[in-house]
């Protein structure tokens, strides 16, 4: 597609670039997309995201949209949800999906891994109490299987229960019959997912060239 127009708001972009790590071109393209979704307003609402046709057949659509409006993902130590977000907050949420740079040290990769896993954790932990309870986990699996219809709820429960048992046995080892496993804490979450190399898996490609006009 055609050359990018002269980038408006240069100093602002520089700020955002430093904060999120995107390049100027990437920020420009995402800004265009933001304006397209929000119908040229300054803030984005849930309904704007709801209308994206590509998301309509995604089983975890609600959770994805919620993640954009979750204050915990804005890196400002906030909590709770908001009704509308600005472009900066949009960018911050998107920055969770940037791949780590080639020349990063092991500690930096570890930090990035924690960040991405924190994002996932926040998606599951809807009541924000710091643990993923059995009910919340069941909800996650139910949503994942919501498209399959036929086998549905009972199986989802079975799978979620088995998964919870697995986490409990890996994290706690041994428990008395009357002890109760409260839920998956963030540390346990890190532990069970340490074999999925999340810093290489949870990335999407951010383009430097403008192709947003090619697809809705």
């Amino acid at each position, binding site marked *: 597609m055609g050359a990018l127009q002269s980038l408006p708001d240069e100093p602002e972009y520089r700020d955002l670039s430093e904060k999120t790590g995107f390049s100027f071109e990437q920020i420009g393209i*995402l800004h265009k997309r933001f304006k397209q979704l929000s119908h040229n307003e300054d803030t984005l609402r849930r309904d704007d995201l709801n209308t994206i046709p590509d998301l309509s057949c995604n089983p975890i659509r609600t959770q*994805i949209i919620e993640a954009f409006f979750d204050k915990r993902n804005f890196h400002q130590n906030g909590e709770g949800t908001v009704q509308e977000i600005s472009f900066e907050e949009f960018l911050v949420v998107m920055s969770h999906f940037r791949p780590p740079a080639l020349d990063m040290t092991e500690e930096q990769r570890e930090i990035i891994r924690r960040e991405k896993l924190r994002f996932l954790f926040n998606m599951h932990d809807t009541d924000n109490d710091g643990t993923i309870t059995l009910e919340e986990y069941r909800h996650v*699996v139910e949503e994942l299987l919501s498209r399959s219809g036929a086998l549905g709820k009972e199986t989802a429960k079975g799978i979620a229960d*088995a998964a919870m048992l697995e986490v409990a*046995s890996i994290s706690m080892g041994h428990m008395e019959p009357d002890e109760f496993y409260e839920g998956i804490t963030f540390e346990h979450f890190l532990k069970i*997912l340490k074999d999925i190399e999340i810093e290489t898996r949870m990335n*999407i490609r951010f383009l430097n060239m403008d192709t947003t006009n090619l697809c809705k």
Partner: protein
Amino acid sequence: GDFFLMLIRFLRFVFVGIGLPIEASAPAYQSHGTEGSHLTNITNTKKAFPVLAVNYEHVRKPFEIALWILLALLMKLGFHLIPRLSAVVPESCLLIVVGLLVGGLIKVIGEEPPVLDSQLFFLCLLPPIILDAGYFLPIRPFTENVGTILVFAVIGTLWNAFFMGGLLYALCQIESVGLSGVDLLACLLFGSIVSAVDPVAVLAVFEEIHINELVHILVFGESLLNDAVTVVLYNLFEEFSKVGTVTVLDVFLGVVCFFVVSLGGVLVGAIYGFLAAFTSRFTSHTRVIEPLFVFLYSYMAYLSSEMFHLSGIMALIACGVVMRPYVEANISHKSYTTIKYFLKMWSSVSETLIFIFLGVSTVAGPHAWNWTFVITTVILCLVSRVLGVIGLTFIINKFRIVKLTKKDQFIVAYGGLRGAIAFSLGYLLSNSHQMRNLFLTAIITVIFFTVFVQGMTIRPLVELLAVKKKKESKPSINEEIHTEFLDHLLTGVEGVCGHYGHYHWKEKLNRFNKTYVKRWLIAGENFKEPELIAFYRKMELKQAIMMVESGQLPSVLPSTISMQNIQPRAIPRVSKKREEEIRRILRANLQNNKQKMRSRSYSRHTLFDADEEDDVSEVRLRKTKMEMERRVSVMERRVSVMERRVSVMEREGRWRGRVSVMEREGKCDGEGG
């Protein structure tokens, strides 16, 4: 009857040396016990009836084949019995050495050692290895890196071929080498034979070093996909070296040929793959022959594409990849195990035979040694590989999300081994090429160098450079859930971003697969089953089988954590004394129900109905054990439910009268389920 025949044959064999009347004759099916009572065709004078006769010619071919295979396998057995050896030297090297010894032995005896016949190699020895590789190809890493793999396979091989061919031609121009008769096309032909990375050698060496998945799939995928390039280049230069000149039209046709060969091969493979999947839909009544369909359809795909001079290797890979998900959903567990083990067995035998024959052929083959040429070839191989990998990675890294590090590049470059395919292609060269012997010698030297030097040193180098190794991980339901979750998440975020990326197309393909393809290729109602549930079912099945085999609960849960620990408890507990009383009552009910349960064998979850086995008693035993497990956990849940009810009722002050009701209720609930 048969036994008697065997006995007669054995006796014949044993008494060969002794001077009993022996006669090399046409095969005589001796009737049982009669001695000379039937005389047919007496044209000569009557001789003594041959009690024992030796007829080696009759069994010669199968006998020799069986003997070779047996020898190969005994050698393999021997290596693994020597403790230190197999850790230091890769098996492929040892087998080549054995081949050299055997070849030397045969030569000393005075016989002509057999050379690795190209037709035998391409039609019998190579397909099992490729099918094994293709059927068990890890799809996810392959598709994620397919761009990189293709670039290495196509452009890398082209670069190698032309670089080597060109420089060798330049070398031949030098007067002192004495090879001025070699023209450019011959050199390019040689370059194209030697440039391709060999899947057999790569598999043999990489299997033992357990390197991380990314590098493994890069090298391995490249070795598989470069077959198309090799086929085209080889045929192209063979044709041209006869004619002598190359025009632009020829080059253009060559490029077209490349696309035809590769895409045609894939198409043929895919067609046979779909046929196999479709056939497997109907095999529910004839489970025993299921594995044969997989093998035969794949072999037919290979042969069909070889018939049209398309890439047989790509056809095999495509066939295996296409049919696997559907076939595995349809066939029984035993068939799956059979397929797995037969493929591993055949590919193991093939690999062993290939390396031994390489050794034997080295001793046998006509050689023409030219120090400069051979040494230069080896050096150029290394140099062009390293340059190619570095150069291509530089370009590829601009397009990759996860870049290739220097360590990755090194292993990819160092793991570019040459093997038997190069040798066979060289052997196929017609004798009209005056340089054939020289080429063969050079090819063998390159193969020896890569397999011995690179094969032996790659393991210590991997340790030294601390390259990431493969993670040995048990299947984890959490990882599976999150893998699927990530897929959907990334597709969604791509949608929000507004560009059609990798995940978008993958999602579209999945949906297409689910709505149209699976419907036709998967038997029964299974096609609706989402992957997560299939995974969960497989995991449970594995645990159940483990339980039957070991007679105890699966080791995934070594702790005493059970459903009780994770079920949310909303109500405060009753006093200890009450609790004890209630527990006693309910455990008594539990015992009663356990006794009753043993005689039943119904399945509570329809999930397990889909799995049909031949052995009914095994099924019942397993189902009963699973049921018992479930019943116990259900009962435990009911205990906690009952406790809650008790505490509620206690608070409401009505429990006294209710205990007797609960006793009866407990019994009824146990029955009903």
